[in-house]
């Protein structure tokens, strides 16, 4: 496993039929940073995450992944990606433990009971629920399981699409803190969210998309008020 230390997005454009989702987005993501990808619904954030995750093919442009200066491609890139999407990406008929064991097997990472318990403890999933089918979980529990799934493989590129959805205030703030810890450990964290409070003070890179175009990008620490201000000035 080679941790990614750079992702270069160059002139990426994507159309769905006549609908333009992204128009020539160029963005650089570096290790040990947390990029807040902001914008209104339909701005192209999820499409951009899809492209960076290798699951959506851009019409034009490229995404280059680098580890220690060398290009990384294919399965080696996917091994380094942890994704939290709108959906949980977990099987409803399987329990939390079984879902994580499946992922551990596919990623060839430690899927032993202690490792799985550790991952579930880390996201605070109720111990009593861990052997229950995931389809019986509440939205918040599913979100915790999805996060455990994304973190289990120790990814160096974390792509999170509305990770705070379904979490209570405490859970959202704890997740924000966890993401900060991962960033400090050297991961590249990209967060798509409308919950500016949860990422305030933790994000050090803000990118705002509007109708598929990157209209604002700046590095630096942002307070809640500052995030709100740049969002309202550029996203509208």
């Amino acid at each position, binding site marked *: 496993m080679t941790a990614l230390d750079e992702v270069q997005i160059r002139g990426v454009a994507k159309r769905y039929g006549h609908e333009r989702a992204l128009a020539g987005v160029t963005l650089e993501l570096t290790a040990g940073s947390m990029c807040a990808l902001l914008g209104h619904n339909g701005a192209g954030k999820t499409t951009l995450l899809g492209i960076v995750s290798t699951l959506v093919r851009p019409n034009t442009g490229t995404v280059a992944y680098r580890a220690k200066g060398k290009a990384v491609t294919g399965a080696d890139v996917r091994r380094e990606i942890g*994704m939290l999407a709108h959906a*949980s990406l977990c099987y409803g008929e399987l329990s939390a433990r079984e879902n994580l064991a499946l992922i551990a097997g596919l*990623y060839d990472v430690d899927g032993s009971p202690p490792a799985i318990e550790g991952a579930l403890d880390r996201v605070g999933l109720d111990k009593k629920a861990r052997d229950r089918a995931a389809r019986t979980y509440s939205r918040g529990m599913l979100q915790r399981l999805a996060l455990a799934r994304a973190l289990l493989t120790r990814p160096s590129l974390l792509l999170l699409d509305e990770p705070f959805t379904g979490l209570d205030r405490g859970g959202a703030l704890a997740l924000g803190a966890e993401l900060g810890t991962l960033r400090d450990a050297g991961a590249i964290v990209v967060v798509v969210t409308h919950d500016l409070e949860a990422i305030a003070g933790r994000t050090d890179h803000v990118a705002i998309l509007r109708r598929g175009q990157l209209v604002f990008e700046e590095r630096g620490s942002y307070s809640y008020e500052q995030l709100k201000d740049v969002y309202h000035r550029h996203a509208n």
Partner: protein
Amino acid sequence: MELLRHAARVAWKDLRIELRSREIVYTMVFFGALLVVIYSFAFPNDARAIRGSVPGMLWVSLAFTGTIGLGRAFDRERENDTMRALLLAPVPRLAVFLGKAFATTVLVLTVAVVCTPLLALFLQAPLFAYPVPLILVVILGAVGIAVIGSVFAATLLKVRSRDVLLPVILYPLLVPLFVAGTSCTAALVAEIPNFDAAWYWIQFLGIYDAAFLVLSIWVFESLVIE
């Protein structure tokens, strides 16, 4: 070996979920059995006519139930966008395809295991006069339905009208498979069985499956990535 190990993992995951819910297999088996009952009422109870029509009944049952199974097996991957999780995993995407196709083959064969004796029982059809070539042709048919069906079911995963589109796209491609399957079965249940013809159609089906397996392996990844 890595590829097969991961494919087995994906297949086992599907079968494990199915063993737990039994949702797809019950639906397929019930529908298959229902078709057999309808055939037994709808067709004349005449030994000669039955010999002529039972191959078609068997393969139509497999086609219809196979489509139900395929649709539902891939719908399951849509529910929590789990197909995305499989495609994101650092395993060859071919392993995902092979795993799904294998699990679907098992489901189609399960239906065949129920429907074939039911057809023999309800219609007094001599389907088990020569069981070995019949089993062989049914296995090859199930593999063909699963391989070709898995490619299109995965491709149509995000299409709203996939339930309608899947059989419309799939059946024309499966016509050679049905021709081979019914012809082989007909050769086996005829009053004077024609083993040369049966063997010819088994070979045809083997080549057909191999050709579509290669083609599916080639196009699967490009079809499932948006």
